[in-house]
């Protein structure tokens, strides 16, 4: 019972986080590719409640940043004017959920830009880029994991159900894939695909590569489940009644694999988000100007950025809750699976 509760809790947390990313246009105050060449590498703006004169304000506000005298990249707060944070403000156009044209943003300010995470080399708002980048990275993870599980399910079911030469060929092949360090494998597959492609093609290419790399482990797990499921009494009975292979697989055997697949999904999705990040970070993934969590961090490869503009690292910290959510989900699923197994085995011993 308790595990079901924690499972629901993590599901809610993840749902909320993903909701924010899905509605990135609404929660992000600015367009992710809108440049402001006059304010590159703006440090994160602070939201204040107390102004420079010591007066308390009910509504949080920000000071706009201006260049410090005789410097070219040091900013200071311009305390002459307050910019109160406004909610449900009209701003840059975007499409809600990809189709609804919309202009309302969750927060923002008039007459100035509020950049909670600072800006990058082109003066683009890092917070907006983080949210929109999340769309790319998380979707890549989800679709990649979906592809892997689909491949794993099909191949595992074929290997487990039909057995014989199909089983041995597929499992030898799986060993081959499991033998390679996965990042090397990812690199290898990426190496043999075209490099200079548009963002959309790159996105699907990456999903295909990431999804194709990991099929071996789920396939093995599915094979194990199918092997035991096909010897169950009710399956034999159904076969005795003349059920076809397709019907047996669809109706009786594949549903047995659902808990294994669910747990694998919770493990694979964050792993694949990381894979996308790694590829994009190294310049093998989604190209600029489209943001992704990987290429958000890639400017840190330059020594000067690392030294002077530490806030470019902030996105790496903000993405941690997402991974935490998936870890929590995976472990609660694993616990549930174990509890289920124990329940079944204790029942078995009773009977």
């Amino acid at each position: 019972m308790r595990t079901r509760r924690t499972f629901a809790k993590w599901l809610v947390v993840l749902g909320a986080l993903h909701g924010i990313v899905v509605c990135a246009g609404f929660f992000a105050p600015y367009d992710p590719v809108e440049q402001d060449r006059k304010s590159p590498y703006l440090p994160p703006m602070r939201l204040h409640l107390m102004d420079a004169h010591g007066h308390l304000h009910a509504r949080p506000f920000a000071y706009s940043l201006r260049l410090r005298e005789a410097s070219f990249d040091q900013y200071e707060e311009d305390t002459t004017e307050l910019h109160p944070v406004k909610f449900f403000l009209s701003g840059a156009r975007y499409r809600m959920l990809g189709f609804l044209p919309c202009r309302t943003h969750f927060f923002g300010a008039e007459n100035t830009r509020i950049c909670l995470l600072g800006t990058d080399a082109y003066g683009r708002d890092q917070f907006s880029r983080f949210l929109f980048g999340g769309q790319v990275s998380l979707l890549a993870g989800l679709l990649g994991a979906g592809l892997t599980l689909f491949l794993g399910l099909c191949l595992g079911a074929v290997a487990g159900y039909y057995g014989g030469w199909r089983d041995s060929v597929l499992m030898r092949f799986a060993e081959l894939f499991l033998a390679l360090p996965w990042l090397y494998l990812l690199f290898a597959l990426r190496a043999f695909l075209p490099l200079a492609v548009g963002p959309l093609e790159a996105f699907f290419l990456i999903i295909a590569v990431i999804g194709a790399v990991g099929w071996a482990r789920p396939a093995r797990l599915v094979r194990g489940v199918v092997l035991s499921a096909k010897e169950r009494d009710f399956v034999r009975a159904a076969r005795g009644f003349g059920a076809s292979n397709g019907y047996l697989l669809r109706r009786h055997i594949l549903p047995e694999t659902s808990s294994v697949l669910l747990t694998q999904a919770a493990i694979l999705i964050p792993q694949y988000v990381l894979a996308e990040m790694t590829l994009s970070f190294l310049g093998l993934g989604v190209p600029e100007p489209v943001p992704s969590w990987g290429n958000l961090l890639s400017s840190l490869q330059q020594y000067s950025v690392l030294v002077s503009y530490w806030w470019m690292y902030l996105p790496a910290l903000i993405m941690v809750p997402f991974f935490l959510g998936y870890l929590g989900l995976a472990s609660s699923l694993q616990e549930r699976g174990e509890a289920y197994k124990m329940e079944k085995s204790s029942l078995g011993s009773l009977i």
Partner: protein
Amino acid sequence: MRYLLRRIGHAFFLLAGVSLLAFLFTALAPGTYLDEMRLNPQIAPETVAALRAQYGLDKPLPVRYASWLNSVIHGEMGFSFAYNSPVVPLLLARARNTLLLTITATLLAWAIALPLGVWSAERLGQLPDRLLSWGTAALLVIPDLALALGLLLFAVKSGWFPSGGMASLGFETLSPLQKLRDLAWHMVLPVTALVLSSLPLLVRHVRAAVADVLNAPFLLAAVGHGIQRRTLLYRYALPAAANPLISLFGFSIGVLLSGSLLVEVVMSWPGLGPLLLEAILARDLYVVVGGILFSTLFLVGGNLLADLLLYWADPRIHTESSAR
């Protein structure tokens, strides 16, 4: 003995399979290194065609694979277009650096994980154990990339550690002892990143394996005989729990190799990682194939080592293989 021979045969089969697969993929790859040349108006098309013929790129795939196998036998593993040299000497220098990093990190990670896991398994469910679980969970959710970048940021900000590379300026002039110190100094950050990223997995598995064994009847009997706690844990419980851990050891090498690929690029450590990335971007396909094969070789070597350890640690394997 037959067990080991079988494992070695298996490893060989794996390597052959990987090389074949990698080669099949190269055939699918669009473009070669020479495509860049073809775009260059200063190079005559005849020159490019001659180069193609020289490297055998105009031959069909089976012929190319055969000639590549031939070059493997001669210790070359094909030819790097970008470096204009055989692949093996190129890779060997880099592979040494990668191995230096991964072996150190593997040993260190296990040296930390074993006592920590045992310590935590002994206090299962108590406060220290729970704190440790939280700690490992926290490490687990920080992406490797964020970890490596964070450490680098720390190094740059504090100035305590070098911010990348493998040697300081004027490394050649140092005495051997100073060289060693300089190298160790440069290794601190990448090794820390690797250890931290692999530690949570190891600690969790050690804890689970030892906790499993601690409830076994033979250990309760040992407690009843009044055997010292330390002896109990490390001489009785740990060997009994070793079986899954040794398999994990082989697996952890793969994880660390993958991790080191990223860490090397981030911290500009001159290992296989940066070379491989460079080769991918330049379409230097033989280097890519060679790099992948080297990494497989390490992994297979690690797994063989794990098998050896298992053979030594688990007497059941002797009887199993002699029964066959």
